[in-house]
């Protein structure tokens, strides 16, 4: 892997895809700007497009939450600064609504921030869109679209995705869906306001929902195209030497995973199956709800529904619970879509920085597959309050308790991997280490919700919010940050600053807990979720109201804590410390490619000669034996062989 650094093609920025460097290519057509950076079929460019878009959406979703948190801490009080700017913004929205969306009149500023204070309806819109954006437009695209697209083919030794054009279509289906979601604020009546779960009948009769549903159909199509691509790429385009199972070996009749693929690839593989098989029921549900709204059907509309004293013009006979079943049939596997890539990233970072093989790799892979399968039959634990009957409840309780076992296997394996290691505490490792207790808290607080008896008092309280935010906010986003810091050198050829990284990490860790820990207490005190005034009207939660201010300030300081990250990110793209192909002295195949990898990824077709985590192999001089080097290369050059620039 040497001579690529040639021809000074490090044009900066995050997209260097199309530089067919060395003499491998007989012809070298320069693609134009549009084909290189916008309508690119290169998995790396698409991965970066996903990544940047997802980070922007995460920022937008976070902004919504910061607005909401003002009203939770100081209900009914005007928002400082914003109250002066908002009328100008409002008149722009009014202009769009009247001239482009066909509204006869619009008073957006007055509807959303009357006198500078947040309107409860607008609060609902922000809440619904915060959830939707964070889950479907932020974390999933970042975890699967960005890391999956960029890293997975490199780790599997593939030159690109199996279907590059479908990969492009996936992104260009995702982006319109996301933009439509955002633009729905400009529609008369505003954005969807029934929560990210969109429970009918409220969602069917609320404005903004149609745009939400159409946006979701775009996003589901995008993830469908992506997941087919991922699975085919892993199965068909993996490098020689990468295998799934040990031939002929059985453990209680089950195939035994072979020490071959990096855990991250396994995680993406299982995730793709979840996306492939769990999203279609939501697509069906989305179509049905769209029919309810547009064609006036009554799939989710019960008979005799009266809204605001007016009988609804629906034939009736539908079932509101049907939506919940279909929605959670997707949305529980969706949790693992968020989690598994995060676990994959953490596993990579931990193995690399402990300089040890992962403990229990095979058990982890087996647990991942079991997790994926079980996630399809636990969905109704979100619905214990819907009078399912004891038999059904007992079934779903049991499956829910069972599904916690594989999660614990993975987490425990990662913790034991730390045992006896001389750990390198760099920024990715800090985030990966912090991920473990954060995910642990998220997982453990979930257990009371999975048992129907304890779920009854906790259901729909802030406890639920605290629980799943521990899972998806620090529990996933910390892993994603670890991934950004870890693979940044591969993408740009430069390292991010360690000092700024630490400045990002410590306040983030503190503030994340400052936001979500009090939620658990408030929830146990009986405070409902989705209260625009933060529970001020509830007499029984007055003693925990003071926490609202703590949580809000934590959220705003968390925003400030992201400034070092953003600065670090952009500074490092251009002025970061230059590093070689393998700055972390890692073993997996992506580090054999040039940094940044050119079109086609590898200079020579990679072969996996050994397992993915051969760190500190006894008898070897070097403390890492890369997967991509033959034994002869290791014997001849026991010193760091791949790390040369």
């Amino acid at each position, binding site marked *: 892997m040497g001579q690529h650094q040639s021809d000074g093609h490090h044009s900066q920025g995050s997209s260097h895809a199309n530089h067919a460097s060395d003499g491998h290519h007989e012809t070298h057509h320069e693609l134009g700007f549009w084909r290189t950076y916008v309508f690119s079929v290169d998995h790396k460019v698409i991965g970066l497009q996903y990544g940047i878009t997802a980070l922007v959406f995460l920022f937008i979703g976070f902004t919504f939450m910061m607005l909401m948190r003002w009203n939770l801490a100081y*209900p009914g009080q005007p928002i400082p600064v914003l109250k002066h700017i908002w009328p100008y913004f409002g008149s722009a929205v009014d202009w769009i609504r009247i001239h482009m969306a066909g509204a006869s009149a619009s008073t957006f500023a007055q509807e959303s921030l009357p006198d500078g204070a947040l*309107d*409860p*309806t607008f*609060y*609902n819109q922000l809440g*619904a869109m915060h959830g939707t954006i964070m889950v479907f437009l932020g974390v999933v695209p970042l975890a699967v679209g960005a890391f999956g697209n960029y890293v997975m083919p490199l780790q599997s030794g593939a030159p690109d995705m199996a279907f590059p054009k479908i990969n492009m279509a996936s992104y260009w289906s995702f982006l319109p869906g996301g933009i439509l979601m955002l633009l729905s604020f400009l529609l008369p*009546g*505003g954005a969807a306001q*029934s*929560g990210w*779960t969109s*429970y*009918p*009948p*409220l969602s069917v*009769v*609320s404005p903004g929902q149609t745009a939400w549903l159409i946006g979701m159909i775009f996003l589901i199509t995008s993830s469908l195209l992506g997941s087919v691509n991922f699975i085919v790429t892993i199965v068909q385009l993996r490098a020689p030497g990468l295998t799934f199972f040990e031939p002929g070996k059985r453990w209680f009749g089950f195939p035994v995973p072979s020490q071959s693929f990096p855990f991250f690839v396994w995680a993406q593989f299982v995730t793709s*199956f979840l996306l492939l*098989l*769990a999203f279609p*029921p939501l697509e069906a549900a989305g179509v049905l709800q769209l029919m309810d709204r547009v064609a*006036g059907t009554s799939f989710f509309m*019960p*008979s*005799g*529904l009266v*809204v*605001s004293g007016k*009988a*609804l013009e629906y*034939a*009736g*006979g539908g079932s*509101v*619970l*049907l939506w*919940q*079943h*279909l929605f959670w*049939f997707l949305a529980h596997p969706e949790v693992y879509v968020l989690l598994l890539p995060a676990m994959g990233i953490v596993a990579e970072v931990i193995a690399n920085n402990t300089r040890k093989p992962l403990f229990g790799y095979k058990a982890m892979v087996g647990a991942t597959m079991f997790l994926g*399968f079980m996630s*399809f*039959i636990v969905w109704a634990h979100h619905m214990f*309050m*819907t*009078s*399912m*009957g004891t038999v*059904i409840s007992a079934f*779903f309780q049991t499956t829910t308790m069972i599904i916690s076992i594989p999660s614990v296997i993975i987490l425990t394996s990662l913790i034991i991997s730390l045992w006896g290691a001389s750990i390198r505490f760099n920024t990715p490792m800090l985030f990966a280490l912090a991920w473990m207790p954060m995910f642990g808290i998220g997982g453990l607080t979930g257990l009371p919700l999975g048992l129907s008896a304890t779920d009854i008092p906790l259901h*729909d309280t802030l406890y639920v919010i605290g629980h799943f935010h521990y899972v998806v906010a620090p529990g996933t986003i910390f892993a994603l940050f670890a991934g950004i810091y870890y693979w940044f050198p591969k993408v740009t050829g430069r390292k991010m600053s360690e000092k700024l990284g630490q400045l990002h990490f410590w306040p983030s860790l503190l503030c994340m807990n400052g936001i979500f820990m009090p939620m658990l207490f408030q929830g146990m005190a009986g405070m*409902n979720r*989705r*209260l*625009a*005034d933060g*529970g001020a*009207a*509830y007499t029984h939660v007055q003693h925990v109201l003071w926490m609202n201010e703590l949580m809000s300030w934590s959220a705003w300081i968390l925003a400030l804590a992201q400034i070092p990250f953003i600065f670090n990110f952009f500074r490092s793209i251009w002025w970061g410390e230059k590093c070689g192909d393998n700055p972390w002295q890692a073993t997996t195949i992506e580090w054999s490619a040039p940094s940044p990898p050119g079109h086609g990824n590898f200079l020579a077709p990679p072969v996996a000669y050994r397992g993915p985590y051969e760190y500190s192999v006894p008898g070897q001089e070097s403390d890492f034996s890369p997967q991509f080097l033959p034994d002869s290369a290791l014997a001849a050059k026991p010193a760091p062989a791949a790390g040369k620039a």
Partner: protein
Amino acid sequence: MTETHAHMHDFEHHKNLYIKIFAALMGLTVLTVGAKYLNIPIVSVTIFIAVLIAAIKASLVALFFMHLSAERKIIYVMLILMVLCVIGLFLLPTAMQHGPITGTTASPLSVAGSRANGAGHGRGGEEAPLAAGTTPADSAAEAGAHQLESGAADTGAAAAAASTTETPSKENH
């Protein structure tokens, strides 16, 4: 598989097979339509016959037209995963079998604080958090479920409710 099919004599063999399958599918179509016109009084028997014939037809298409009778192992593995998930999916109606869903309630369920249309939002005060300050989607939906379950499930009530909504309803014809 590709190679094995490439031979000429194989072609004639496969052509004959496809024609046989085609004839079987046509025959089964006639059978299933014929069974309908028998007007079997027991609904479950009608359903059983129709689904059975459809399953046979679908298997023929999948096995021979889609060549599942001689496919690679990886496709089977993948389809087994799918079948497991489909079983999960059909758990769904089972999980919902806890009472009729069409029955109407004696007093119509009203959704507090929701707006039927975009125009004219009524804003609730802070003292009524569930009415305006929240999205009571979950609670409302669940409350609906409880009410519906307890409601009487007789056809007459449903028909009456349907007619009050002033939507053309088939049973009124």
